[in-house]
Each structure stands twice: as C-alpha cells, then as structure tokens.
C-alpha cells in the first residue's frame, strides 16, 4: 500500500503541475528566436493566453533578447583593417 502511494505521489508533480507549463517553458527560446514550428506556436500562444506566469516569462525572454539586439553597442572596425587584409593577401600569395 505504502509503496503504491509514494509511487503515485512521485508521479504527480510532472503531470499535474503541467497544463502545459513545462512544455511552454521549453519552447520559450524557440519562440523568441523564431524557430518554433506552426504547431508549437499555436500551442504556445494558446497557453499563454490563459496562463499569467508563462505570459510573463515570455515577456521577460523577449526583453532579454531585445537587450542584446537593441542595446549592445557594435564596435567600430578600424579604418585600415580592410586595406591591411588586402595587402597581406597579396604579400603571402
């Protein structure tokens, strides 16, 4: 009896917790990177319409990506670099 009970108890979190939250978390990167399939997108969007937690996580993930793509400054290529490369190629060949 007891062992059966603990068995069931252990099983519970994985399934019960769900409602798809776990799957949605796994899809977060795919979604923000535009790599999710149509089916995955549909599942994801449907879920976050109803789940505040996952909705917020999605917002945060988008924000994080935006911080890199929108705020990380690009370094300026030294003006002479292209010339140096061309010159070196002519030298070595």
């Amino acid at each position: 009896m007891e062992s059966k009970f603990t068995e069931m108890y252990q099983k519970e979190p994985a399934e019960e917790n769900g409602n798809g939250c776990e799957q949605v978390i796994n899809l977060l990167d795919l979604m923000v990177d535009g790599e999710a399939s149509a089916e995955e997108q549909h599942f994801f969007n449907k879920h976050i319409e109803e789940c505040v937690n996952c909705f917020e996580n999605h917002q945060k993930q988008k924000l994080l990506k935006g911080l890199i793509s929108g705020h990380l400054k690009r370094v300026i290529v030294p003006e002479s670099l292209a010339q140096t490369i061309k010159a070196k190629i002519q030298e070595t060949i």
Partner: protein
Amino acid sequence: MSEQTGKQLSKEEKDARFEAELLPVLDPLYNFAYRLTLDEDDANDLVQETYLKAYRFFDYFEQGTNAKAWLFRILKNSFINEFRKKSKQPAKVDYSEVEGYYNTDDVEGDSGVATTTDMRSESVQDLIGDEVASALNTLPVDFRTVIILCDLEGFTYEEMAKILDIPIGTVRSRLHRARNSLKEKLEKYAKTMGYNS
C-alpha cells in the same frame, strides 16, 4: 599544396570574388572577434588571420552559399586553436570593476534611484548598453558565443550548429543555459532600472 587540383579561377577573378563576397562581412566578423577576445588588437589579428585562411581555401567555398556563416566558422576555429591557448583565461575581463558595481548595488532597490530617470534618454540607453556588455563579458566564452550569434547576428539554430560544429540540440541547451546565466546577472541591474516585475 593541393590547390592545383581545385577548380581554377584566375587570380583576378579570385580577388574580385573574394572582395565582393567576403569583405562585406568584415563588420560583423570584427564584432564577433571583439566579443570573443575582448581586446581590439586580438580582434584585429584574429580577423586578419581568418581572411588569410579564407583566401587560401577560397576554392572550396561555394559561390552563393552563406559566406557569413563560413567566415564565422573559420574565425571561431582559429580562436579555439590559437587565442584560447594564448590567454589561458576564457576572457580578459576586469572582474573587479564588475564586482565593484554590483557590490555598491547591494543597498537594496528602495532608494528609487532610477524612478526619476527618463528611460528613453540617450545616456540611459548608453548605460543599459554598457551594463548588458559587462554582464555578457563575464559569461564563459561558449555562452557568450551563442548569445552573440543568435541575438546580435541573427543566425538560425542550424547555422549556429554548423559554425560551432555541434548538434542543434546542443545549440538549444547551450543557448538556454547562457540566457539563464545572463538573466541572473542582469536581474539586479534590472531592478534598479525599474524593469522589476
């Protein structure tokens, strides 16, 4: 040595194609090199070496295929082979500076420093950029790499897998861990900037 066997282009043709197809990638390539080495001179050397190799193996490059991914791959390999050896450390980062910043931040977010700041002002935007950069620079180089390739350069998972010579599944899990780590580092900062949720 074995170049005679490749499909032969005249030197002029080769030079012209090289300039037209590969040199336009200079800007992203230099930026990638800089984010890997965190040093302008090293980035300079690494980019030069990459282009020299690319020229040497240009006969193997298929015209019209992804020149950017090809060059990124060469650069990444050069970096692993040479620069990593040179600088034992994954990156030259001034940790003391970063630490200093975070420590002074321990005062807790109730001071409301940022609440009166206009988030759109240029100086604030610069500040965010600096903060993102220093957080990113403290990540291990493998983590930094996937974030740069994905979020800054917009490579697909498949392209990243080719550049890094790893399966797509590894790209995904590495990116996931890299973002979690970056998130952690930025969290404190985000609070002070009113990004608190």
